[in-house]
């Protein structure tokens, strides 16, 4: 917010999927912005719409059944939704890169890793084959893989090493934004620690902004500057990491923290959020969280709460905090 200009500005983004059993309201009126060099944690449960939002930014929503119904996505001041498919292809990979969850399936099994990195470079920069190969090898070293391994195939690498290759591909053209969709979920904790450490270093080195999609609040605490909590297709709370972790405001955020077993203290029983995430084809009226909310009021089922700024930079969509709103 403090920056005068944001790298990415998402305004009122709404994405629906048409299915046989009705319309899926995957992303519902979502607003979000990311500054230069910022890392944003994007947290929510399965089906909250995290990945759909990411695919929306990349314009990779499968259409049909998916469709961006409404909204604007400003990237470096230009609305991505007005771009042609050809312009988008130039942006994908060179200016915005994506790291997917599963490194086992996001690499081409019949191409050497060196060629896969070089392919990306050749696609976006006008370079000779030799130059591209040289840069591919440099990128491998950047992510901590010996350059001799450029001629190896993905199956010759372990899971953590494969994810390093994917990161090398994502960074090859020095993008200004990286969208990392659960980049360490498929990895073991000690390997996850290695990869997170690498991502932290590279973020500083290349001064890249990043959207970190995850369900793990531990990872967010470690690597992110700001956090957006997502529930049923929209952001329900947004703040810098400190404010959010020390003073979570939305009852859903509070519940989320309470459901994680604590490593440092005794708990007989975990506090749970009752019920289940709502059916995205049939979202509850008013606040989508109200059927599960321990503090729900009459109003919550009738009206949708607007975004309010409780403290500077700490936003929440909840009626409970309306009276404390001084702004």
């Amino acid at each position, binding site marked *: 917010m403090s920056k005068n200009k944001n790298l990415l500005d998402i305004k009122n983004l709404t994405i629906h999927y048409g299915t046989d059993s009705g319309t899926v309201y995957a992303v519902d009126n979502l607003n979000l912005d990311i500054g230069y060099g910022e890392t944003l944690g994007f947290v929510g449960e399965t089906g909250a719409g995290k990945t759909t939002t990411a695919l929306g930014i990349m314009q990779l929503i499968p259409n049909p059944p998916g469709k961006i119904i409404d909204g604007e996505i400003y990237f470096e001041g230009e609305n991505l939704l007005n771009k042609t498919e050809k312009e988008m292809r130039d942006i994908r990979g060179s200016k915005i890169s994506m790291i997917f969850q599963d490194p086992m399936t996001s690499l081409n099994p019949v191409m050497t890793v060196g060629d896969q990195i070089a392919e990306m470079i050749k696609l976006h920069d006008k370079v000779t084959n030799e130059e591209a190969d040289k840069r591919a090898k440099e990128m491998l070293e950047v992510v901590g893989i010996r350059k001799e391994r450029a001629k190896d195939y993905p199956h010759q690498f372990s899971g953590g090493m494969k994810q390093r290759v994917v990161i090398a591909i994502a960074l090859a053209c020095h993008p200004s934004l990286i969208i990392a969709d659960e980049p360490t979920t498929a990895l*073991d904790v000690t390997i*996850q*620690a290695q990869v997170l450490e690498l991502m932290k270093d590279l973020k500083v080195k290349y001064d890249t902004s990043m959207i970190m999609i995850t369900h793990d609040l531990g990872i967010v*605490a*470690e690597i992110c500057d700001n956090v957006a909590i997502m529930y049923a297709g929209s952001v329900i709370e947004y703040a810098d990491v400190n404010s959010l972790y020390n003073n979570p405001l939305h009852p859903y955020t509070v519940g*989320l923290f309470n459901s994680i077993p604590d*490593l440092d203290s005794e708990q007989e029983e975990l506090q*749970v*959020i009752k019920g289940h*995430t709502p059916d995205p084809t049939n979202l509850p009226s008013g606040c989508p969280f109200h059927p599960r909310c321990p503090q729900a009021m009459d109003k919550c089922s009738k009206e949708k709460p607007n975004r309010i700024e409780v403290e500077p930079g700490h936003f929440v969509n909840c009626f409970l905090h309306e009276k404390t709103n001084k702004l």
Partner: protein
Amino acid sequence: MGDRLLEVRNLKKYFKTKEGMLHAVDDVSFNINKGETLGLVGESGCGKSTTGRAILRIHEPTDGEVIYNNENILKYDKNKKKKMLRKMQIVFQDPYSSLNPRLSVFDLIADPLYVNKIYKTKSELSDRVKEVMDLVGLEQRLINSYPHELDGGRRQRIGIARALALRPEFIVLDEPVSALDVCIQAQILNLMNKLQEQLGLTYLFISHDLSVVRHVSDVIAVMYLGKIIELSDYKSMFIDPKHPYTQALLSAIPVPKVGAKRERIILEGDVPSPVNPPPGCGFYGRCKYREDICKEKTPELLNIGEGRYVACHFVK
């Protein structure tokens, strides 16, 4: 301390592969007391699931003893084994692939009862199914639903109901919450705790998630490359881990707190292959304290006092 229910002695399970013998479980020993939970942790491929399955003879162990209620169940013949397994059940990780998609909730839960011919009449059978559904918190209206109609949490409840139908004493829980979202995970963990108290169950809880294991276990065993390298009560393990691998593993957990002071130990490299492992400590290549002896001699899991066991030449 309760009575000992299960004793695993020198359990081994090797698999034959093209490249040689894969030592999935290599000389593992531990005990579980009645009504308690042993948490078995480790990273993928360390042999924790194979251990759980070898105990139930889903994979027939290569060597060792599994003593259940003072009898070695590995010596049982087919009939005795089948009877035995009523008392010993398993809940699998992925509720999406471990349930037959063509069976309804009723049939899924009744299945183990049919197979073991427990009830003679339909009404008895259906009463028991309903009773178990209540026990695990599945709404009666779902009795004719199919797995694809239900979410992950409810499916895992079916998995638990199937395991409970035969009134077991001992359950192997193989990553029962790993495929679930945190909110649902918390619900299932609370359910497992409640059932343990209510029915006096004994659990072997297999998981890669240390915060989950800490929450449910009385005793925790850490596995690395087919061996248990540290075993201790859950409190001491987290306050003062002894083995260098346990230390690194604990330090690698991302903590959901800002400014949490934790010194992180980043391990180099990867877990070595369990096919034809060389002699010596399996952790040798990644350990920062390694010395020549670690390469030559495999450290044994030794009692270092206060009920703690560590397999490392430098921890006494």
